[in-house]
Each structure stands twice: as C-alpha cells, then as structure tokens.
C-alpha cells in the first residue's frame, strides 16, 4: 500500500470532524500512520467543511492533492471535490441527491458558481449532480450511491426512533461504514473507534448505523474499489493528536501554570484542552494549571505578565487579531524583562482575513510588534512534534533570558491530526535561569534591573521575603524607578538588547534550525513552519529522480542564527524560498541579515496549506529550469 487518501465533506454541524476522527482512530488502531487536514468556514452550521486524511504504513508528513475515496454527505461536497478524486478512486454519494441541480445548491458562493458554470460549459456537463458524476465516471471514477435516508429509516425502526430528523446526524457514520466496506478494512477496529468517540448510548446507536451501512455496501457494490486499506501488525505505541493538543501538552511539560486567553480561532482549542485537563499528575504531589478566560487579548497578555512577575510560568495563546491587541503589552514585557510566552497561531490575514484558514504572513509582525526596540525570542515550529517540544522549551528561554518568547504556529498545524510514536520527554529539564530565593537575598539591597555583563539581572518573584522591588513601562534605573537620564537610558537599552547576543551564543544550533539532505547540494530550500512536511516529502520524491536538494528549516527566527544561515547558503546555485505568504518574509529577513537573496520563491496565500504534490511540481520546475522566479500555488478548496 502506498498511501490512501480519504476525504469526508459536508455542511458544518453535520459531523465531518467526528467522522474524520473515527476514521483516523480506526486506522491508528490498525497500526497505520495518519495525517489529517481540516478545512472549515467561519460559520457554525451549513457551510461546506471537509477533512482530508492520508493513511499509510510508513510515516506521513503532509497531504497530497489526491483523493482515493470521497465520502460526500451532501451534493456540494461532490461538486467541490470530485475533481480531486483520482482515476479508479470512488465517490460515495447520497442517492437522493443525484437529481439536485448543481447551481441550485444555496451555499455555493458566487465566485465558485462562476467557475462551475465555466467548467460545465467547457466540458459539456449537464445541470444535475448525476451529469457531473457521469463526467467523473468517464474519467474512471467509481460512483457509489447510497440511500442515506432509506438506511436511516431502517436504523430508526431498529432503534425505535420514528423521527428520522433525530438521527440524520448519523449520516456521517453511514459514510464511514460504506467507506471501510469499500476499502475492505477490519470492521472491529472501526467499531472500537466509534466506541472511543461517543458516550456508551450514542456509541451503541452509531455502531448499529455503521454496521447497517457496512452490510449495505458489501451487499450492493460489486464493482470493487481498487484501493485497499490493510491493517498492519505494527507494535509501535502511537498517539494521534492535533497541533493544539501538542502545544497544550508541551506547555504542561514546560511548567506553564497560568494560561490566559480570549476566544479566537484557531488558538482557543488549546486553552480549552488545558482547562479540561487542568489537574496535572507529577512524580510528587498533583499540580494544576489555572486557565483564565479574559475579557480581551489586552487583558490576556497583561494578566500573563502579572502571573510571570509573581513567579509562575505563564503564557497566553492567540491568533493575528489578538496578537495585534497584545502589541503594547508585549512591549511592556520587553521593557520590564518579563518571561512571558505567547503562542501565536497564524491564520489568513490581514484584519479578520480568512479566520478559519491557514497563513504564514505574521513572521515580520511577530519579530517587530510593539513600538521601540526590545529583545524577544521568536520560535517557529514545523510540525506537531516540534510544537510540543518548542512549547516546553519556550518557558526555559523566556525565564533564562528574561524576555517575551513568541512561539509561532499556524492554522495548518493547529488543526491537523497526525499519528506519532509516543513522545519521549523524559530528558526535558526545567531551567529557570537566575531566579533568586529568599536565602540568596539576606542582607542585600535588591535591584531588579542590576547592570551585569550578560545583561541578565537576577530575578526574584513578587512576594519574595526581604525583597521590595519595582518595575515600570517607563525607562527605569537599576531599582526599577522611572529615570529619563541619558546615560542610564543608554546602559539600560544596551543591557536589555545584549541579552540577544547571549541567546545567540548559548542556545544550541539544533534547537534553532534543522537541515535536511546534503549540505553540499547545489540547490537549497529555505522555509519555516508547516510547509516543512510537504517539502521533506517532495525532496524525497525528487531525490529518487536524482535531484539532490538541501533544506534549511529555520526554527529560531529571532535572533536568527545568522552565521549558520550565511554558511549554509553561500555559493548555492539556487536558493528557493518556500512560504505561505505573499512577500516571502523569511527570504526577505535572510537577505536583510546575511545579504544573500533567494533567487526563487514558491509562495501560497490562498488560505490553504501547501501539499506535497504542489511542492514537488514547483520544485521540479525550478531544478529543471522551467520555473519563473516566483511561483504562486493555488491548490485546495
């Protein structure tokens, strides 16, 4: 088995996510690796959403463009995604919907209608869904019509529920039953996944529905789907998790004990997950994390800073609009040298932008938000495992260097679901830096901002015995009182800023970047954040075709490991910058810091993440000399 790509789609509120979760778990139980991408509108009910799941025996890092089996809850899903289904792939469709006139689907946006009309005209496709499916069949796609309501009637009778409207929610499980029957997958594993997803009573109903659909498909569809899903005997212990969950667990590991947030997509899931798991098991007594839902993001960052001043490890979690509101508080934390961590989930921007979609356009903003100049660390994780460890490490860096740390994630990572071997975190150490205790301070006059060679002034939490301290957003003297004196100002600025040199010197290079492939290769890709997985997979495909390309993934963007980057890029034939934004922000930053310009850009700003397929084609065009200096990717619905 190469990889199987399954997609479920339907209106929001119809259980697409639940279906995908059951599908992913069932595959996970069978020892398979899963990578899932979730797409949804900024809407509660009714607009189109879908989940693309890729399943394989081996490790998977990203999605492909392909769909092998499409489970459509409604007509819109077929209209939107049938083109992605590969030859000999299948479409599961509601048999009642085939007479639907495509242009009558009310939720189709006007821009999509225009494209659809154009498509129908060009390809001579009639107006009903059936015409569209016939066209797909001409392209060797199999169509599996299933009478969803008919099956629900049977199920309703068995459950003694006469009103079908009360069980239409189970259409999602019907499509799962049909999907797994077509893929000839072990039904017991699917039942187990259903049980793990619902409460006992609901699970019982859904198992009945699952089996009804599974039996129906086995009975009805004799035209076998070419693709099969086989469980493996893998004994590796794996977890199946989202980026939001990985960050939350990383924070717990890193000692975060106060988390503040204001609801925003795609960050809020992390805080809710933390609150649901707030009592923490340790090797000693139980501990706990307090999660505070604040009135806005201004309160969120400032309450987190307050908690950090009191000695707790504290963080806040937000997305672009929230981070915009945090800019002033971030500057205060910089000026007062507060170890506060901000987890920043980028989404389509500017303004409200594409609130539920992906983007990577906030790198420069994270690096520069706030007026004036102050020291900060900016980290960017490239996958879920990095999300976990970086989230933990952020607190060590924040406390050791006494500055805000911004941890950049993006929507693609936050909402994707992936299987991993259970994380081994046993070696993770807590480093609180120069944190003073009562014993250190007997008989001393404490100066919170004492001038030191490194710039780091030993820190005492508020409330420490024998310590009275001040801090302020004004420029201040060593004691933390307001000072506008020019010499003091110069010394304070230099003290704060020179801590960045220390970060640059002390943090090991392996925590700042990853290099993949041969350092001697003539061509190199530079990137950051979630494109990592697609790039690695695309490079492996190109390597088989004898194109060797290196890949420099930056994880610490501020301070940028300039010397390493300069050496890695010097003398390269082609430097290819891959990012999900319009301006190629990382490429620009590298040029600013090293003087080395990227000569190719592969960019995407449609709000959808890059796929392996897209990156492969774009990189191949570059190395075969067929690419323009700027390629813009557009795949995805």
């Amino acid at each position, binding site marked *: 088995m190469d990889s199987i790509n399954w997609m479920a789609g339907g209106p929001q509120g119809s259980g697409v996510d639940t279906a995908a979760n059951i599908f992913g*778990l069932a595959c*996970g139980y069978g020892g398979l690796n899963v990578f899932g991408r979730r797409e949804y509108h900024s809407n509660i009910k009714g607009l189109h959403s879908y989940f693309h799941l890729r399943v394989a025996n081996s490790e998977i890092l990203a999605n492909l463009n392909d769909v092998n089996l499409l489970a459509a809850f409604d007509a819109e899903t077929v209209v939107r995604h049938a083109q992605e289904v590969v030859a000999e792939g299948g479409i599961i469709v509601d048999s009642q919907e085939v007479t639907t006139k495509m242009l009558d689907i009310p939720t189709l946006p006007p821009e999509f209608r225009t494209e659809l009309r154009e498509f129908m005209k060009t390809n001579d496709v009639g107006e009903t869904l059936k015409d569209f499916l016939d066209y797909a069949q001409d392209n060797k796609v199999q169509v599996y019509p299933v009478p969803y309501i008919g099956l629900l009637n049977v199920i309703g009778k068995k459950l003694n529920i006469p009103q079908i409207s009360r069980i239409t929610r189970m259409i999602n499980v019907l499509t799962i039953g049909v999907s797994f029957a077509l893929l000839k997958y072990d039904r017991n594993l699917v039942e187990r996944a259903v049980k793990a997803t619902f409460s006992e009573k609901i699970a019982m109903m859904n198992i009945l529905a699952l089996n009804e659909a599974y039996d129906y498909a086995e009975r009805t569809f004799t035209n076998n789907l070419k693709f099969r899903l086989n469980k493996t005997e893998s004994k*590796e*212990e*794996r*977890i*199946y998790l989202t980026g939001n969950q990985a960050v939350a*667990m990383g924070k*717990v*590991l*890193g*000692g975060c*004990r*106060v988390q503040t947030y204001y609801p925003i997509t795609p960050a809020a899931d992390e805080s809710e997950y933390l609150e649901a*798991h*707030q009592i923490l*098991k340790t*090797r*000693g*007594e*139980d*501990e706990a*994390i*307090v999660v505070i839902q*604040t*009135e*806005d993001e*201004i*309160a969120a960052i*400032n*309450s987190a*800073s*307050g*908690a950090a*001043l*009191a*000695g*707790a490890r*504290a963080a806040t979690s937000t997305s672009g609009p929230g981070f915009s509101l945090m800019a002033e508080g971030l500057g205060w934390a910089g000026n007062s040298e507060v170890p506060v961590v901000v987890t920043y989930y980028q989404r389509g921007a500017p303004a409200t932008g594409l609130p539920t979609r992906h983007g990577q356009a906030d790198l420069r903003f994270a690096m520069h938000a706030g007026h004036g100049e102050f020291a900060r660390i900016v980290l960017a994780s490239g996958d879920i495992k990095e999300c976990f460890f970086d989230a*933990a490490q952020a607190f060590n860096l924040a406390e050791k260097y006494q500055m805000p740390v911004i941890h950049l994630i993006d929507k693609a990572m936050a909402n994707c679901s992936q*299987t991993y071997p*259970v994380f081994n*975190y*046993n*070696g*993770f*150490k*807590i*480093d609180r830096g120069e944190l003073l205790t009562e014993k250190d301070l007997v008989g001393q006059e404490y100066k919170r901002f004492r001038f030191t060679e490194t710039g780091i002034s030993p820190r005492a*939490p*508020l*409330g420490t015995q024998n*310590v*009275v*301290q001040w*801090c*302020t*957003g004004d420029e201040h003297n060593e004691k933390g*009182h*307001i000072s506008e004196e020019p010499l003091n100002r110069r010394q304070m600025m230099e003290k704060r800023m020179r801590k960045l040199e220390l970060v640059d010197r002390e943090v090991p290079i392996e925590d700042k970047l990853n290099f993949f492939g041969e350092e001697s290769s003539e061509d190199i890709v530079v990137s950051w954040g979630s494109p990592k997985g697609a790039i690695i997979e695309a490079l492996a495909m190109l390597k088989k075709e004898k194109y060797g390309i290196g890949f420099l993934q930056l994880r610490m963007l501020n301070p940028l490991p300039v010397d390493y980057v300069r050496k890695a890029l010097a003398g390269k034939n082609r430097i290819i910058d891959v990012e999900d934004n319009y301006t190629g922000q990382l490429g620009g930053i590298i040029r600013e810091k090293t003087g080395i310009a990227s000569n190719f850009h592969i960019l995407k700003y449609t709000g959808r993440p890059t796929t392996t397929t897209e990156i492969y084609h774009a990189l191949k065009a570059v190395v075969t000399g067929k690419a323009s200096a700027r390629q813009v990717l557009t795949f995805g619905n």
Partner: protein
Amino acid sequence: METKPSDFRVSDVYADWCPGCGDFGIMNALQMAFAELNLQPHRTVIVSGIGCSGKEAHNVKANGVHTLHGRTLPFATGIKIANPELEVLAIGGDGDGLGIGVGHFVNTGRRNIDMTYIIHNNGVYGLTKGQAAPTLKRDLKTKSLPKPNINEAVNPIGLAIISGYTFAARSYAYDVKHLKDTIKQAIQHKGLAFVECLQPCPTYNDINTKEWYAGEDRKDAQGKSHSRLYKLEETGFDPEVRDWKQDLSKKMAALEKSEEWGDRIPIGVFYKKEYESTYEERVNNRIPFYRNRPPAKQKLSDERDFSAVDLSPFMEELKTS
C-alpha cells in the same frame, strides 16, 4: 513584625506631583493604612497605571508594578491568581480605569478577586495637560478645555456595583483619615473592593477644587462655608448586604446614593457584600490544593531539574494502541 508608616516611605524617589496635589494625601493614606493593617512591604503589591496616579507605585515602599494605561486590573489579576497570598492593590486614574480601561473595570467585577482597586478621580487627564476625563460632568469647561465637555460623566460607584464589585466606597484625598479608614476597609473586605477617591487637580481642574469641595462658594448667613461632602456613615446609611434577599434593595439604595452630586456629595461605604464567593474560592473548588500550592508556588522539577510532570494521562487519551 509590626510596621509603621515610615516603613512604607521611599527614600530615593522624589514625588514629582504638583504642589497641593491630592496624590500626596492618597500616598500618606496608603502608608498609614498599610502600617495600621501591619502589612509587610514584600508581600504587598501596588499595581498602578499611567498618569500622575501611576507614580503612587514608586512612592510607596511596597512592591510596585507600574503598568500600562488602563491595564492595572489585568496585571493585578494575573499577580493575585498566581499567588493569592499577596496583598494586591490596583491604583489608577479616572481616565485609566473608566476610559481606556473600562472594559477591564467591568469584567474584573465579574470575577470578585480578593483585591482592592482605587481610582483617583479628579475629572481631568493631568499629565497630558487637562483634557476631560470620563468622570468630568457634562458642560463643564475646566481651564484647559477649548470647549465645554460634550460627554456625559460615568458614575464610578454605580458602574462598580452593577459590574459585581462586592465593596464600593468613596473618599476624599484631603480627608486623609477618612481615606485611610476607607482603604483599610477595602483591603480587609473579602472580595473585590472599589474605592473612588475624589481629588482636586490644582493645576487643571479649576472647577472641582479644594475650595469647591469645602463649599467656600456657598457660605451661609454667618459667613461659614459648608462642605459639599457628607459621610454616609453619619446618616445611618447601612451599606452591608447580609443575605441575598437584601441584595437588590441594597444595590438600589447604593445606586441612588451614587447619583447624588452637586451640593451634597456622599462619601463612605455605599455597598458591601461578603458572602459572595471570591474568584480564588471558585478556583479552589476546581483545584482543591490551589490555596496551598498556587501557580507561583508549584514545584516544576525534581532535584535533578527534570520536569516533574507526568504526561501519561494525556498520552493514554491520545493513544491508538
């Protein structure tokens, strides 16, 4: 250790308020109140905002966190929740708390955290040269306003009560004893306490002056002036809510009092309710050891610095095997 007001005096900071500023009175009242309550400087935190009032944090010898304009309450909230053993006071101006920071003013009321919030109310933005603050009455033209104030004034006590503050009082910066006693009651109150401190701005508010509060413009036949301020406690006003059945009527009585202004201005405690659970108690209901091991006091690592946390409950939930 017994503390004295002098223990709360700062020696190396020049208090740079204008001569005659009410902030001096507030500073003295704070120092006296802290001493009488025997607070310890290292366990006391003053969180201040921006404006003249923000400097109170530097002029009292207790931990001082001088924050951003309007953001005193979020900082104070974070500090208190991380370490509820600390005595936390938030102090800010009227523009700070009722203009730019009014969202925090209201929402902090909803939490009823056991801390104190003091607003300096002088009706103007002093440090930016006297613009109208949210507490300046409509149609007043203080001396640096180009035109009379076009906005209605907010009612700080009323807003506090309907926002959920469980203690609301008003005092006067030039009546240091009354202010000190009011601050003491606020600190001792279990729950979120609000104190509005009336305060002339000798430089920019030429209407609500010391003389105006003293009633010098309305002398009686004997030539004696009668202060506009009167003490609620001397009128038999009972602000305390003892059970939930009284709450609405006490609230309404307090709101009615809070609307008085002009020739008779009440000071003292308007509203007080202690049976309401504090935020800390609510957190403690979810985390039974919160008070003993609050976030700031947790042990994050073992003796070899390894993170002490055991993630296996998380991992178990996520396992596919």
